[in-house]
């Protein structure tokens, strides 16, 4: 039988306090893990911190084990079924073939970068020679004109979607606020919204192309025409969710708040910034999230049809190539598009979480 001393008690208490603190921290971090789609980290941390392992194990199983198993099952099914489907481009590639093409595309990227480096080297040699011959006025610095690599295409697509999305936001939020504040404006915009919302990007594209060609005539501008075509098509298709949700968020603002505003005799601008926007934020962000998702989906279609640079063009070019690796490359693109779409969604979710948390505090 041991006697418990004072110091033991104190140490015990301190340890308890530390643990409690640790768990609060873990719980706090959990909200962020959930936003990032890493919710399985929490039970792992808890178990590491010495929480009841049994309950944590079931949590880990649910959050990590089950999804992993599902992915493995999907891959197995794919690997077994793919070779049984014979297309005119050979059998449907399995996971192995697709993974191989990932390596190929990377090697391709490296090769292209080497070619670019060689180009710049040649340019430097040429310019040095001209310098030596005393013809400095004929020295030129030009950018390399090789094919865009897979990474370049991804980057182009991401830039385009964000540009289109930004224009959409800049247009949709003010109009949404207007519609939410004024029933008259709402009645005016409603039919337009209802008619244009279901229109497919592929229908907008020819119109956008024609208009951009007619209006944007400077050839030394900031943007290339193809970039604008894709971006504006994205804008036209992705502004509706933001617009509708903003209007809804603004319209459903607490009446008491509006009354408070009236009592304080707030100006319109102050009313919007201090009352309307903060309370409508969660819905606005829901709209933005939907918009970005729609925009990403639309962009790939627009790039495919208009042959504008980006992932859509990559898919279409590969389809046209019709080589024995084309299908596998297209599948790589499909996964890339899916993963980037997921990441964009998470990004918006994180921003939304950041804003609404600060809002609820």
């Amino acid at each position, binding site marked *: 039988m041991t006697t418990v001393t004072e110091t033991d008690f104190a140490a015990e208490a301190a340890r308890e306090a530390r643990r409690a603190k640790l768990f609060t921290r873990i719980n706090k971090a959990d909200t962020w893990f959930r936003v990032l789609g890493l919710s399985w980290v929490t039970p792992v941390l808890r178990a590491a911190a010495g929480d009841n392992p049994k309950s944590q194990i079931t949590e880990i199983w649910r959050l990590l084990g089950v999804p992993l198993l599902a992915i493995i099952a999907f891959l197995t099914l794919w690997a077994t079924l793919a070779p049984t489907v014979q297309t*005119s*481009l050979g059998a449907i590639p399995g996971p192995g073939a697709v993974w191989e093409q990932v390596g190929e595309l990377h090697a*391709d990227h490296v090769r292209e970068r080497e070619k670019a480096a060689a*180009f710049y080297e*040649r340019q430097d040699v040429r310019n040095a020679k001209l310098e030596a011959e005393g*013809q400095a*006025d*004929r020295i*030129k610095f*030009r*950018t390399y*004109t090789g*094919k865009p690599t897979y990474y370049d295409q991804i980057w182009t697509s991401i830039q385009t979607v964000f540009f289109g999305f930004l224009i959409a936001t800049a247009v949709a939020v003010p109009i949404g606020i207007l519609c939410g504040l004024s029933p008259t404006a709402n009645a005016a915009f409603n039919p337009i919204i209802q008619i244009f919302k279901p229109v497919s990007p592929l229908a907008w594209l020819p119109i956008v192309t024609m208009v951009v*060609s007619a209006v944007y005539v400077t*050839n030394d501008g900031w943007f290339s*025409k*193809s970039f604008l075509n894709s971006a504006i098509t994205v804008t036209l298709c992705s502004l509706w969710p933001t617009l509708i949700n903003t209007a809804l968020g603004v319209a459903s603002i607490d009446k008491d708040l509006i009354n408070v505003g009236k009592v304080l005799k707030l100006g319109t601008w102050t009313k919007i910034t201090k009352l309307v926007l903060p309370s409508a934020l969660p819905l606005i962000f829901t709209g933005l999230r939907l918009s970005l998702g729609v925009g990403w989906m639309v962009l790939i279609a627009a790039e495919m*049809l*208009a*042959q504008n640079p980006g992932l859509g063009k990559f898919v*279409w*070019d*590969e*389809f*046209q*190539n*019709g*080589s*024995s690796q*084309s299908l596998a*490359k297209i599948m790589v693109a499909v996964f890339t598009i899916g993963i980037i779409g997921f990441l964009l969604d998470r990004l918006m979710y994180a921003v939304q979480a950041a804003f609404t948390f600060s809002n609820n505090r």
Partner: protein
Amino acid sequence: MSIRTLLPATAFLALGLSAAHAQFLELEKDELTFGFIKLTDMAPLAVAYENGYFEDEGLFVTLEAQANWKVLLDGVIDGQLDGAHMLAGQPLAATIGFGTEAHIVTPFSMDLNGNGITVSNEIWAAMKEHVPHEDGKPVHPIPASALKPVVEQYRADGKPFNMGMVFPVSTHNYELRYWLAAGDLKPGYYSPENVSGQIDADVLLSVTPPPQMPATMEAGTIYGYCVGEPWNQQAVFKGIGVPVITDYEIWKNNPEKVFGITAEFAEEYPNTTLAITKALIRAAMWLDENDNANRPEAVEILSRSEYVGADEEVIANSMTGTFEYEKGDKREIPDFNVFFRYYATYPYYSDAVWYLTQMRRWGQISEAKTDEWYFEQAEKVYRPDIYLEAARLLVDEGLASEADFPWETDGYREATSEFIDGLEYDGRQPNAYLDSFPIGLKGSQKVVGNAVEG
């Protein structure tokens, strides 16, 4: 800075002096974008880029694959593209205003031959019994008369007989029509009111982009097609169809693609145009050098995904001078793709006139035209003056030899009767040529409603 560089190079040429070095072409524009369609005959562009011929001229070129011929032509017209690999009929049709109207010129012909006509396995099986055989192999060239009973059977069953080609003013459209008409099958007329090209037709032709030809035939939408390589060989590889004839057998050494730019471009950037032409001539020379010695290398370049992107062995088939008809029936056609021999790159007026006669023959040109009109249009679009200037520069730089170019020609090739139906074509007599066809518009005939009048 020497006085030489102050003078534009063209002034020199006018003075009969030659620029001592390629570097002395004062380029008005050095960053260019060219469009192309994924076909093996875009090879001169890929080679000029990969072998650094563009760079040697001080040009920085971006090559962009296009979705289809219409997108490509519109790109050149509205300036998104500085130039493009075009169907020979495109600059001519644009200039005379059939389809989109715009003045397009060509200083450089890209190649000869390179197309084939393919039918689906089912049609081939039905055709085969009407084709004479020797040693168990079909006798080539196979005329369309072997297809005639098959088409008649389909029509008796009430089924339309559909075939695909790549564009209304494409070489492929005229070659397919020529072959069908030579076999007594009516391929249909165009009229100003009805541009489907299916008026009074036994065989209904429609447009399909080249890369989608095999897939469209597989889906049963069309029973056959006329297209450039690699899409005929692709059908053999995939086991979905059989090429029955190459265009080499329809018209020996026929002109196929051209490099097109707008007239404004040629006017505004004369030196740039010269530099482009020089680079392309060098590429064409490289492609045909030492009896096609470089073709395997060219095949490797073309098989890269940014150019044609099809499998190497598919492209190699025709590029290295063989052509596979039925699976296993490989025959030597050394001139299936010609890029430089026989003055292939010189823009002959007679080539332009032939295309114009075919446009008139099938009603795309709805009214009768005088012989002079044909010559005028040809001279508007084909620019041998630019070509010869570029060739002269290359000879002076020691990159080409005097004998490679037809310095003295008046732009009309010798009359030839090396067609599948044996009719003689003389570019100097377009109307007489039109009159010699049993099927097709001639004299002052017109298509009114659904019939030919006059």
